[in-house]
Each structure stands twice: as structure tokens, then as C-alpha cells.
């Protein structure tokens, strides 16, 4: 078992998949000569050369669409978006091309492509560079969406995504690139569509994904000190959702809090909360709680930006409401 950073785990996955299959190539802004804006692609240009590691001009729509066409023609592109904020320029190519090509061609064309890059609030970056946009992609049938919280999942999910025959959007977390964690030796895949139980507990279920997992685990520790054992479920994949894992946990604990750093309206988390309310209604002892990012653009001021995000006190308070144990 090796200890490595989230960044190194992604790099290892890319390296292995590039070595395994010469249809795989990586393109994006600064992925080559610069070794990646966040150094995820470090060393890959030197190893695989400019035909397979391609620095693009700053044209998100253009190179994303180019990736879609290359995938239709049988390659397996990995498109790095410097951040998901910039990927909004490529929304049409993902939503109208990648996601729909199989369906509107009556099943004649696959688009085996991975779109990946950092997502979610960072620090001191203000509104346009600090937001969680996973709900945009998760809304769309035809796409798969993964959001790993650990180095091992970052590695295993990226490998699965590259081998998948459908377009996969990967939400990496900017603040997790330096996070260290254990990654098993030897090759392994993390299946797309499987949640992971991070902490067992009998009193309530905390459902989350990506970076907030770490805040949620901290909150679970705090709840334990207060006498409540929370179960923590990490979704890992946002589409397709592991509904069975969600219901199995909530039917055991009868209480549920969903935690996301994204906005509350029309979000992955609000949909999960709806599913739980709909499908576990008879087993719920309290309304499903939602802890989300505040419903505002991200401010620059540090105290304000922290206040805009889920934190331990907010999660503990929501949990205690679900437990009818408000202080």
C-alpha cells in the first residue's frame, strides 16, 4: 500500500492507461510543456510525446468538440479542462454532442471520452473560479459523472472512466490535489456507479461526495462525541446513482442529511434528498435535511467564503434537527 497524493494518483492512472491503450490521448490547456496547470499530467509529455499529450489553445468549445469527434472515430480522448468553470464554454459540445450522439444516431455511435478537471470552491478565487458545477453535468442523460474524494478513488475511477464506452465527466477537487492517502499497490478499478460506506453508524445517514466528505467525517466525529453514531455514505458516482446503497443505509438509520458544496436548487443533493423522501418515506423518522453551499455567488473575502460553504457546525446542526435533538 503506497501513500500518494490525489494528484499523483490521477497521474498514475493516466500514465497506466496511456501505456495500456494507444487510442488514449490527453489534451487540454497546459497539459504538456507546463506539466499541467495543477501538475496532474507531470512527466507525461516527456514519456508519451506530443502526438499523445497535446497542448491546446484556449478554446474550450473547440478542443472539447474535437475530443467528441475523435471518440466517435474510435479514439479514447481524455480532455482536461483547466477548471470546470471554463468548461461552461464547452457546455454545448458535452450536452448536445457527447451525451446525445448514441441516442440520436439510433445506437450507431459511441463517444468514449473523459472530461476532467478541478471543481468546487477553492480559496480566495471569488465567484467565477470557485463554484461547484457538478449538477450541470449530472442533469444530462447520456453522461456519467464521477466525483472522487480520495486518492484511491481518483485513481480507480479515472481508470474506469477511460475504459468506459460512454462519456464520463470527472469532478476533481482543487483543494484535494495535495491530499495524501493510501492507494493499493497494483492495478485496480473502482466501478462507476458504486457508493462507498466511509463510516458505519446506526443513528443517522450523512450522504455526500467529493471534498465535503472530509468535513462530513469530521462532523460525524463531533456527533459521536455528542452521543450520536452517524453513518457516512460517499456517493463517488453522481450518475448513475447507487440508489440501493442510499436506501439500504437510510432504511437502517431512518434519518438522513445530504451534504453538498453546490447550490441547493436543482442540484444533485436536492435530487438525492427527493429520492430518499420518496423511496424511504415509511422508514423516515424525520424530514430529510439538506446542507448545501449558500445560495449566493462565492465572495472573495475569506471569512465570507468560508461562511458560504458547508462546515462542521452546519452539518452537526442539521444532523441534530434530523435527530430531534436540536440544542
Amino acid at each position, binding site marked *: 500500500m503506497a501513500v500518494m497524493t490525489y494528484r499523483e494518483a490521477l497521474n498514475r492512472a493516466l500514465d497506466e492507461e496511456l501505456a495500456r491503450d494507444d487510442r488514449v*490521448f490527453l489534451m487540454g490547456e497546459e497539459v504538456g510543456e507546463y506539466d499541467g496547470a495543477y501538475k496532474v499530467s507531470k512527466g507525461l509529455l516527456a514519456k508519451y510525446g506530443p502526438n499523445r499529450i497535446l497542448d491546446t489553445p484556449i478554446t474550450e468549445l473547440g478542443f472539447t*468538440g474535437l475530443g467528441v*469527434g475523435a471518440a466517435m472515430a474510435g*479514439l479514447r480522448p481524455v480532455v482536461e479542462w483547466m477548471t470546470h468553470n471554463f468548461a461552461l464554454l464547452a457546455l*454545448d459540445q458535452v450536452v*448536445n454532442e457527447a451525451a446525445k*450522439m448514441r441516442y*440520436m*444516431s439510433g445506437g450507431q455511435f459511441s463517444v468514449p471520452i473523459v472530461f476532467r478537471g478541478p471543481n468546487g470552491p477553492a480559496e480566495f478565487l471569488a465567484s467565477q473560479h470557485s463554484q461547484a458545477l457538478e449538477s450541470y453535468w449530472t442533469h444530462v442523460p447520456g453522461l456519467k459523472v464521477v466525483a472522487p474524494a480520495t486518492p484511491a478513488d481518483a485513481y480507480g475511477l479515472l481508470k474506469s472512466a477511460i475504459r468506459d464506452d460512454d462519456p464520463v465527466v470527472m469532478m476533481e477537487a482543487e483543494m484535494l490535489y495535495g491530499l495524501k492517502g493510501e492507494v493499493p499497490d497494483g492495478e485496480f478499478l473502482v466501478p462507476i456507479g458504486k457508493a462507498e460506506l466511509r463510516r458505519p453508524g446506526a443513528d443517522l445517514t450523512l450522504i455526500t461526495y467529493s471534498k465535503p466528505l472530509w468535513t462530513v467525517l469530521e462532523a460525524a466525529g463531533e456527533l459521536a462525541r455528542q452521543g450520536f453514531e452517524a453513518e457516512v455514505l460517499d456517493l463517488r458516482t453522481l450518475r448513475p446513482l447507487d440508489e440501493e446503497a442510499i436506501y439500504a443505509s437510510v432504511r437502517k438509520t431512518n434519518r438522513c442529511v445530504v451534504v453538498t458544496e453546490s447550490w441547493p436548487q436543482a442540484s444533485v443533493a436536492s435530487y438525492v434528498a427527493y429520492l430518499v423522501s420518496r423511496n424511504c418515506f415509511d422508514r423516515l423518522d424525520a424530514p430529510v435535511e439538506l446542507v448545501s453551499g449558500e445560495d449566493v455567488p462565492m465572495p472573495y473575502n475569506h471569512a465570507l467564503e468560508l461562511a458560504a460553504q458547508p462546515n462542521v457546525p452546519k452539518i452537526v446542526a442539521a444532523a441534530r434537527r434530523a435527530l430531534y435533538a436540536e440544542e
Partner: protein
Amino acid sequence: MAEKKSLGGHDKKFLMGLLSSMHRIRAFEEKAGQMYGLRKIGGFCHLYSGQEAVAVGVISALDLSTDYVLTGYRDHGHALACGMDPKAAMAELYGKAAGCSKGKGGSMHFFDAGMHMLGGNGIVGAQIPVAAGVAFAQAYRGRLAGKGSESSPSGATVCFFGDGAIHQGAFHEAFNLAGIWKLPLVLVVENNQWGMGTSWKKVSSNEDFSAMAGAYEAHGEFVDGMDVLAVYDAASRAIKRAKAEGAPALLEARTYRYKGHSMSDPQKYRTREEVEAYRARDPILHLEGRMEEAGLLSAEEKEALRSKAEALAEEAVAFAEASPEPEASELYTDVYAG
């Protein structure tokens, strides 16, 4: 000895093929328009009548065993020129299971993987970066075959789009990418002079579209899109260059659509005289006239081609009428692999 005659260096068999293909498209579109009027076909339906010389001229210059075609939503003509069976095309307009996209695509999304016809795209200009990606795959395979970055691509990709699409960022982003990565991409702007109801001149700061190639140091050429032989010759040059040099090109084919933008267009933005002036330069009549002058087309042959095309369109309608609707379960298939 008539068989020895030629026109512009092309023999009779080739010319008859061009004429037959244009007739097939014209007859299909006329029939599609009729069936739309009878409410057999719904939604958007953009007819290609008037522009036949562009699709037929360009696609005749391709080798579809290695080359690819992508287009926008006015895609019936390109699909038929690639060799799609009119039955599969008409069944698609009817939304039937035997349609070329299983009734899931409709008029704007004709696909045929076997014929390398990669759609049928409903977002103006969005197919251009996708086409650059197909050309990228061709170049990539050539480069990985161990011949370095300058090796020949395995084929070329042609992307059709209209005068409305050329101002999209998608066009400029894709053209630049094709230039820096030396992609065998031939961009064909079918300037039919009306972007829906807006004159291309009103929205184009540079009315010389082919000159836009200069911005990307690519080959640009203007061609009369009502003259199928001129289109064929220009396309052949661009495709040959694309394959030999791995270089993109832009071809502007000035053409005209006889019908409205879609079936719901009352065409108040243009005059009857303008339409008639272009009908007088009809691409089918034009080629027929030149072949007759050269002694390459008899009155009987001319009539036979026309009636054959009309019969194919009739058969296509009969086939579509008789075809079953998709199974209800088809709603959920083809969203994901497996």
C-alpha cells in the same frame, strides 16, 4: 463512339452518376415536402432542393471507405449523396423503427456508420469541432503508425455547414486547431445566402468567406455551388491537398435553397424574382444542358433518370408507410452502452 466523349475530363458514366444522385435528392425532397404537408412528417424539416450540386459534387470526390462526412441539420442531401437508401431516410422522417437512426433522430439527425456519414447535427456550427476530431483521429492513426508527425493521414474528413454557421466560434476554434495540428479537414460552407430569414450580407463583415482561410494560413477557394462539376473539381483539389499535406481547407460554395428555411417559413424576406433567377440556373438543368450539348445525354436517358428518381422516392414513402413504429422499450435503449 459516343462513349468516348467527355465533359471537363469526365466520362459519361461519372456524369450520369452525378446527375442520378442530384435527381435522387431532388425527388426525395419533393416527396418529403409533400408528406410533410400531409402531416406524415412532423417537427423541423429543412429541404435541400437547389443545393444538390454541393453535396453531390463534394461527396463524389471522396472515398467513403476511408473518408468521413459530417453536416448540419439540412442533411438529407448529404446522406443520400453518401449512398443512404432513400427508404431508410424516409422512414427516419416518419419516425419509424427502420429509419437510419431508428426513428430517434428525425430529419436533423441522419446517421450511417457504415457509409461514414456522421450526422446530422442540429446546433448551428457544432459539427465543425466534431469533424475536426474525426480528422484528428485520421491524423493520429497515421502519426502513431510510426512515421512521425508529418506522416500522411489515413483519409480526409469533410464538414458541411451553412453561411449562418461560419460566424460561430466553433468554426474559428476548429479551423485554428486543424491548422496547428495539420488535420485533413475540408470545411465546406454552403452559402445559400439566407441564414433562416437573414441575408448573409447583413451579418458578414467579410463577404468573401473563402478569404477567411487566410486567417488560418489554409487553402481557401470559392466555387459556383450551382455547377456540380466545378464543385467536384474544387473539392477534389482540397481533398487531395488535405490528404497529401495533412492540411485543412475552406471551400465556399455559393448556392441557393428553393424552399423556405424549414417547412414553416413563409419566405417574406426574399422576392419571387430572386428565387426564379436561381431556378433558372438549376444545378440539374445545368448539367443536363451541358451533357446534351456534348452529346452525352439523350432525351430518353434524361427522362429515365428523372422517372427512376421519382420511383425511388415513391418506394421510399411506401416503405416508410408500411414500416412499424419503434417498440415502446426503445425509449430507454441507446442512452448508454450495454
